[in-house]
C-alpha cells in the first residue's frame, strides 16, 4: 500500500497572507432530497454536523457539511475514513434515491491565513468579501479567476478553498500572486 499524496504535497507560501496547500481530506458528494429526515440523520452520523442552510457550511469536530445546491452536499471527513463513512451512509439510506460518491482525490484544498485574507479572495473571485456580506458559516461556490472553486471562512483570519485537483498548480499560482507583498489594498477593516 503506497502513501496517497495530495496534488501539491503541502506546498506553502508566505505572502502578506499565508497560502498553504492542505493535505488530503475526505470528501463525499451527496445528492438527494435535502429535506428528508433520513438524509439529515445520515449526514449527521457521517460528519457530526447538522444539515447546513442554503449557501452555508456546518462544521463539527470530526467533519463538516457544505451546501452545494438544492440537492447536493459536500461532506468533509478524514481521508482514511471515507470508504467506511460511505458504506455506513449507503446502509442508512438504503431504499432511498440518492448518490454518495467519493471525490476526495478529485479535489485540492488550500488555506489562506492572515489579516487580509478577504482581499486576497476579492482579487480573484467576483464576490463581495465585506464583513457584512460574507462571514464564518457562509459557503460560496464561484469562480477563482478562470476556474470553479468554493470557499468558506473558518474564522476571521482563515479562508479554506476547494478546487479541482488537476488545476491545483494554477490555483496555487493565483493565490500566491494575489498574496504577493506590496499588493495590500487595505479595504476590509
Amino acid at each position, binding site marked *: *500500500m*503506497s*502513501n*496517497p*499524496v*495530495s*496534488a501539491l504535497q503541502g506546498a506553502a507560501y508566505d505572502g502578506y497572507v499565508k497560502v498553504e496547500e492542505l493535505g*488530503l481530506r475526505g470528501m463525499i*458528494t451527496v*445528492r*438527494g432530497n435535502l429535506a428528508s429526515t433520513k438524509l439529515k440523520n445520515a449526514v449527521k452520523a457521517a460528519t457530526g454536523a447538522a444539515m447546513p442552510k442554503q449557501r452555508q457550511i456546518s462544521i463539527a469536530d470530526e467533519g463538516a457539511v457544505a451546501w452545494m445546491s438544492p*440537492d447536493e452536499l459536500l461532506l468533509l471527513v478524514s481521508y482514511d475514513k471515507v470508504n467506511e463513512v460511505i458504506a455506513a451512509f449507503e446502509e442508512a439510506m438504503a431504499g432511498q*434515491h*440518492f*448518490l454518495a*460518491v*467519493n*471525490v*476526495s*482525490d*478529485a*479535489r485540492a484544498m488550500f488555506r489562506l491565513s492572515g489579516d487580509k485574507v478577504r*482581499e486576497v479572495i*476579492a*482579487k*480573484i*473571485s*467576483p*464576490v*463581495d*468579501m*465585506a464583513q457584512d*456580506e460574507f462571514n464564518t458559516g457562509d459557503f460560496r461556490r464561484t469562480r477563482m*479567476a*478562470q*476556474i470553479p472553486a468554493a470557499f468558506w471562512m473558518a474564522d476571521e483570519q482563515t479562508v479554506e478553498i476547494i478546487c*479541482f*485537483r*488537476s*488545476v*491545483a*498548480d*494554477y490555483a496555487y*499560482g*493565483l493565490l500566491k*500572486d*494575489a498574496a*504577493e*507583498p*506590496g*499588493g*495590500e*489594498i487595505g*479595504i476590509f*477593516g
Partner: protein
Amino acid sequence: MSTRLSNSGRLLNKGRAMNFTFNGKRMSGFEGDTLASALLANDQMLVGRSFKYHRPRGIVASGAEEPNALFNMGEGSKFEPNQRATTTELFDGCKLGSQNHWPSLEFDVGAVNNKLGRFLTAGFYYKMFMHPRPLWKHVYEPIIRQSAGLGKAPKDRDADKYEHFYAYTDVAVVGGGVAGLQAALVAAKTGARVLVMEQTAHWGGRAPVDGGTVNGEPVDKFVDQIVSELETMSNVTIRTRMMGSGVYDHGYLLGYERVNDHQPEAKGPRHRLWRIRAGQIITATGAIERPISFAGNDIPGVMLASAVRDYAVNYGVSVGDRTVVVTNNDDAYRTAIALKNLGLDVPAIIDARSGGAGALGDEARALGIRVENGKGIAKVKGYKRVEGVAICSQAGEGAVLEEIACDAVAMSGGWSPVVHLWSHCGGKLYWDEAQAHFRPDVDKAPTGAAGEAFVIVAGSANGYLDLAAGLADADAAGKAAAKAVGKKVAKSDVPAAEATDEAASEAIWLMPQGANIKLRMKSWLDYQNDVKVSDIQLAAREGFESVEHAKRYTTLGMATDQGKLSNINGLAILSDALNQPIPQTGTTTFRPPYTPISMGAIAGEARGEIFQPIRKTPIHSWNEENGADFEPVGAWRRPYTYLRDGEDRHSAVIREIDQTRSSMGLLDASTLGKLIVKGPDAGKFLDMMYTNMMSTLKPGRCRYGLMCNENGFLMDDGVVARIDDDTFLCHTTTGGAENIHGHMEEWLQTEWWDLKVYVANVTEQFAQIAVVGPNGRKAMEKLTEDDISAEGLPFMAFKDITLAGISARAYRISFSGELSYEIAVPASQGRALWDALLEAGAEFNVMPYGTEGLHVMRAEKGFIMIGDETDGTVIPQDLNMQWAISKKKEDYLGKRAQERSYMTDPTRWKLVGLETTDGSVLSEGAYAVAPGENANGQRNVQGRVTSTYYSPTLKRGIAMGLLLNGPDRMGEVVDFPRVDGTSVLAKVVDPIFYDKDGEKQNV
C-alpha cells in the same frame, strides 16, 4: 521661455529634487511634478510632432485631455509608448523620449507634409490610394505603415505585475473634486458604503486653483476637512490615482488604479483594475476647457487658459514671460490675474465678447491688465514657439489691427462637462444654448438591472460650473444616491460658497468669425490627428453629414485623446457647414475607457504561469521528467510522445507503437471523462443519451456508446460500465467530460426533471492507466493476486482488484486492438501505480506512449475519433455505425433529426479506409476530387480525409475518410490533389487495417 517660479507650486515638494532625461538630455524637477510640469520647468515646450503634418507640438493641457505630450517611457521590459505627460507623475530616474518624428524632434523630415497640407485634405488617403488596386498591397500600404502609428511597440515582455480587484459598494463616486467629495460625504453620512476615486494624486480638483471660499474658509481648507472626515469613516474607501474608466450595464464600473506608476521600484502591482459593482454611481468628473479655433492655435506656447493657471499655481511653472489671454468667458480672466499676481506679464486679454467680462474683468483692469473686448486673434506668429499674436476684430475676416509680442497664449473657448461616464451606458445629453455645451439630461439616465436609474451626475460635470451651484448639485446627488440604495437621508445644509458675478459666455466656434480659407487651414481642431476647420467643412461639402461619418472621414476625435478637446468645436463647425443647429448634429458615441488603460491592467493576473489554467494529471510530473513532448487537449497537457535522447517525434512514435504492439506499453489515460449516473431511472435516461441501448447492459460489463445532440450529429463516445442495477459509469472523451456532464444535467434539469437520476463528475477522482500489449497481463499478474485471466476478467468486462497494493478497478477495454486493461485508482495513488507498472514491466521493456501512438493505433484498428472523423456535421450512419444505434428504442437524442431527408440522403459521404498507391501519407483534410467544376469554378469534390498517419505496423501511409458512396467503391482508386498541383492516388479499402477479426484484444 517657460521656467520655474520661486514663489508658487502648491503640489510640489521642493525639498526633493528628481532627475530625469528627455531624449537623452538630463533634466530635473521636484517631487509632485507631472512630467509635463517638469518639462516646462526645463523650458521644454516642444514635445512632439503631429501625426500627419509632423508639425511641432507643445503641451496644451494639464490633464487627461492632453493631445500632444505623449512619450515613449522607460526602457527594455519597462518600456511603454504613449504615456501622457500631463497625467504621469515624475519619478527619479525617469527616461522619456518623444514620438512620431524622424530623424529628431528638432528636425523632422516628415514636416514636408506640412508644406503639402493643401493636398493632404480630409479623406486624402481614401481618395488617393484607391487606384490602381494592385499598388495598394505592394506600394502604398508598406510606405504608409512605415510612417503610421504613434510611439513604438514594446519589444520586451512587460516586467511589471498587474491585478484585478472585485469591489462592491452602495455608492461609487468618480471624481475627487469638491463636488465628488461633497456628494460622497452626504451619502456616507447615511451609512451607505461609499467608494470615491480620483484620477490624480490630489483631492479637490480645480477648486484650489480657481479659488473661492466655502463656509467662509478658503476652498482648499474645505477640501482638507472633507477628506479627513471621509478618511475616518469605516464605510468609506477613498483612493487617489484611480480613474473611473468606464460605466457598464447593471452598475458595473471599472476603476483603473495606477498603484506604482509614480514609484516604479516599489513592490506590488503597477496597475490594479477595480471591477466594481455599485448600487449608484455618481459621476463628478468635472469639465474640460475648449480651445478656440484661430490660425496657428497649435503652435507650441498656445495652451488652455486653465492649464496655464494650473502650471503656475500647482507646479510653480510659468509657461511664458508674456502671456496673451484669449477668451469667450470670464474664467480665463482668473489665469490673467493669477499670472499677474505672480509677477508675470500679461500684455492683453483678448475677449471675443463685445460686452466683455463681469467682476473679474474689473479685477484684471485694476491690476493694470489691458482688456480688449470684441477682439480676436487673427493668427499666432512663430513655428516652434509662439512669438506674438496678430489681433483682429472678432466680427471681421481677420484684418490685422495690431501685433502683440508674447511667448505664450492662454486660450479659453468655454467649458464642456465631462459627460463620458454618464454617456457610456446610455445616459442622454441635451444642448445648453446659454452655456454652449452638451450636458446630461438627468431625466434620461442609464438604467440598471431593476430598470432603475443608476448614474447620477454632479457638479460641473452636470453643467454647474460655479462653485456654489456645483456644491449644491453635488449635495443633492449624494443624497439622491443614498436614497436610491435604500438609506434614510437626514436633512442637512449645503456648504455655502460665495457665488461669483460672471458675465455670460458667448459661443465662439471660429476666430475671427469670418476667417478666410487661409486662416481656416491653419485653425486646428484635433491636434494629434491634424484635423483643421477646413477639413470638417470639406467633409460636409462632400456629403459626410452624419457626425459619425465626418469623424471617420476626417479622423476628428479618433486620436488617443478621443476628441476631448476637439469634438465640440468640430461638430459646431460641422453644424455651421450644414446650416443646422448643434443638437441636430449630435455627438459621436462616448465609449470606455475614458483615457487609455494599460493592457496589463486588463489582463490582470492572467500572465505567465497563470495565463490560463493548465490541467495536470497525477502522472504529469513523471511525464515532464521523462521527455514528454506535450500537446494541449482541452485544458490538459498530454504527452504527444516521450522523446528519448536524439529522437525526433516521428521515430519516438514509431518506437512506442512497435513496442506496445510487440510487448507492452502504458498510457496515461487519466484525462478521460468519468461520470457516475445513478438512480432507478438511470438506464432509461442513458437510453435517451446514447444511440445504443444501455438499459440492457449487465452489471460488471462494458459497452461502447455513441452520443448525439438533438441535431443528430455525433458529439461524444466512450465506454459505459454498469456498476450495479442503479449505477453506471460513463466514460467520455478527454475534451468532453465537462460538456457531457453539463449536457446530462441540462436534460435532467430542464426536460426530464421527473426522472430519478443523479449525475456526478468523478473524472479527477481517478488516475487511469492503460496497460496495453501482449505482455501487459504478465506484468500485471506480478502485482495482483486477483484473477485477471481471459476467463477471470473477460473482454468488455470490469473487475475491482487490488493492484500493487492499491484498490483498483480494471476495465478490459481496448482502443489499440491489443490485449488491454484500463486501470482506475484514486488519483492520490496514480503515480504510485504508474511507478509499480513501470517496474513490473521493465522485463518486457515497457514503454509509455503518447497521444500520437494512441491515435495511430486506433486508426490502424479503424476506430473513429471524435473531432477527427466527426466535426459537428457527421452522424453515426456516415461512419457505418448503424450497429451502435438501437433500432428498438422509440427515442433517443438525435433520432428524430437522423430521420430528416438530408440525413437519410444516400449520397452523404461515408467512412472508408484509404491506402495510398505509393505508400505515402495523405495530407490532413485533403479532398478527393470529382470531374467537373461547381458554380464557383472550383473543382468538384467527392470526399475528404479525416485521419491520416504513417502506420509503423503496416509500414505505409493509412487514412480514413468520408467518400461519396464510399462503402460501395472498395478497390477503386481516387485522386487527392496536393497544394502543389500534383496528386496522390489512394485505393478505397476497409477502414480496419489491423487484426480485422479482433483476435488480439480478446485473449
